[in-house]
């Protein structure tokens, strides 16, 4: 019983760590897509930010500078996406594909040119990273049964960016549903013409949406390379940007449900790693690849309309052309 409890807590702890970049990225995608700009380049932005953050941390030794550089990189890429899709009415999917491919190549090219380690950045000291933080009272409460373990092992002991990710969800909800900016942002994703008629700039609203998207993917990338790991390795995002996109759709383009989907997909991943080679009674050994592919399968099943219905923002993917 005691063992099972600890096992569950450790699995949940791993879930939190796996889900953090997913949460940040799907909140990023939420802003972009609710404003009508499809973003399949979450992956590329996160990868670029992870690489630059790790490089800056290795060069300067400051995790804060690294965070700033990671965010700046992702914001730059987001602006490029906006420049193509908003200013030049380019195809949003094509632009996203371009950024993903560009970053998967460029991070390795620059990594090898700068560090000569086959695309990896130098290992970082703990002073150069975001390290786990012990929340107050974690030691004191450690002896309290159940609650102490939950608090000490699950809630406390993560790095700063994890808490940022979990705070991003209520913040995203508040901005989208309780502010004037959020109302307009959602409106521009549904009916840009109405927003334009009201005298509000569609382009400026969408640019702000992709900027927020860049900010959040930048934090996600920085988390991967200098908080959760101690270096950048090539292709380190490994499809997590796409899983975050799947979570966003699985959550029907809403903050709390998308957050739930991120936790679910994170849990699946954490369980998959733990189940490696362990036979389940009655079923036998479940191949890990299938559990890892489950988020994609679930998303397809959802999109097929077999579990509820995911309705995308109405004007998503359509460049807005002002009538002249």
């Amino acid at each position, binding site marked *: 019983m005691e063992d099972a409890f600890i096992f569950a807590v450790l699995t949940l702890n791993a879930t939190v760590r796996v889900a953090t970049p997913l949460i940040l990225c799907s909140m990023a995608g939420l802003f972009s897509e609710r404003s009508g700009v499809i973003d399949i380049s979450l992956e590329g932005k996160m990868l670029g930010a992870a690489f630059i953050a790790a490089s800056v941390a290795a060069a300067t030794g400051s995790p804060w500078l690294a965070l700033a550089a990671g965010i700046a990189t992702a914001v730059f890429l987001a602006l490029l996406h906006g420049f193509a899709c908003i200013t030049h009415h*380019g*195809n949003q999917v*094509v632009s996203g594909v*371009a950024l993903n491919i560009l970053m998967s190549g460029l991070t390795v*090219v620059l990594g090898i040119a700068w560090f000569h380690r086959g695309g990896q950045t130098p290992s970082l000291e703990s002073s150069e990273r975001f390290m786990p933080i012990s929340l107050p009272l974690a030691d004191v409460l450690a002896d309290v049964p159940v609650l102490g373990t939950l608090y000490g092992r699950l809630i406390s002991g993560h790095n700063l960016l994890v808490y940022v990710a979990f705070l991003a969800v209520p913040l995203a909800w508040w901005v989208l549903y309780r502010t004037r900016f959020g109302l307009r942002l959602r409106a521009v994703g549904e009916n840009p013409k109405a927003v334009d008629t009201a005298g509000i700039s569609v382009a400026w609203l969408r640019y702000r949406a992709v900027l927020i998207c860049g900010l959040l993917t930048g934090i996600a990338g920085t988390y991967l390379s200098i908080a959760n790991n101690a270096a950048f390795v090539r292709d380190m995002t490994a499809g997590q940007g796409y899983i975050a996109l799947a979570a966003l759709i699985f959550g029907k383009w809403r903050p709390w449900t998308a957050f739930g989907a991120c936790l679910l997909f994170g849990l699946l991943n954490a369980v998959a790693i733990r189940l490696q080679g362990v036979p389940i009674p009655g079923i036998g050994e479940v191949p890990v690849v299938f559990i890892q*592919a489950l988020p*994609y399968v679930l998303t397809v099943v959802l*999109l097929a309309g077999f579990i509820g219905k995911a309705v995308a923002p109405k004007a998503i993917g359509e460049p807005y052309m002002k009538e002249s």
Partner: protein
Amino acid sequence: MSAPPAELPRWIDIGLIPVINICLALLVSGLIILAIGENPWDALVIMVRGALGYGEGVGYTLYYTTNFIFTGLAVAIAFHAGLFNIGGEGQAYIGGLGVGLVMLAFDSYLPFVLLLPLGILAGALFGAAWAAIPAWLQAYRGSHVVITTIMFNFIAAAVMVYLMVNVLIKPGQMSPESREFTEAGQLPFIHEMLAGIGITVTPTPLNLSIVWALICCVGVWAFIWRTRWGYELRAVGHNEAAAVYAGVRPRHIVVAAMCISGALAGFVGFNEIMGVHHRLLLNFTAGYGFTGIAVSLMGRNHPVGVVLASLLFGVLYQGGAELAFEVPTITRELVVTIQGLVILFSGALAYMSTPWVTRLYRLFVGWRADTAATAPTTTTGEA
């Protein structure tokens, strides 16, 4: 994608602007090479020489070209129906699985002449089947094909890992590969065929499938512009509502277009599995499906353009390999970077240069009209 202003003449729209876009992409690539401390001009020379300067290089270039023709055509035909197939990677993977399964099943019993059409058929069927599910979901359940094909790429990868590691692996070895096909299950290499008629060239992976790729180009051209189905497909791509009034059933077209697209992508497996590796293995698609997007965009979704763009990417891939070999600070990923830039400039930013070109063109036309108009007045001496 927004349409360019109509008043530009055709040669500027389909000739000059794509060239400007490629030049912009190459210019940025040059800046990147400069930034990592190498000389872009030297790099270009090494690339072109490595890709086209000697027999082996040309063989490899054409071998890459074969794959790009297949995936480029796949993306192009979907584009004509107004669909974006990002799933070429997964369809190629599953197509290769189909080719491999047929070869593993029949290579001891059937002769090459039967295995050749069977291989083509298997690649087409498996690739088409993998595209059919997202297509059906888009046509009948309203889910977007872009998202579902992305998901299907990952699902295809998972299926292949499972099959290769647990089912199809040749017993008694570590690496997840099947047994090698017998002679009957292998496409002849071009160097073997040339040796048959007395010409000796360096062995390269280039094989008979390039002929099939060219046949596919002609087939796709004829299908899109010379058949009723092709007409209906383009009609749906241009204006679905109008197509409905013309009696076209868009749902059928969506499924058909995606199936053809998937089948074409599946032929990458035909080249790689039956033509080069002669066994089933992991990761043989190596990003060719994604490159198909760049190829199709650059080739303006026309088979002739696709062949030209495939050649360019063949040169980039082979030249890039050579460059990585000669210059230690440069890696093969430089080619991936260039590919990303090409998609950015000739896809997403395709019409960025149009306003400038239009303005220049108008200036030029206006200047010519002015000189034509002022010429007679000056001769009459009126001032």
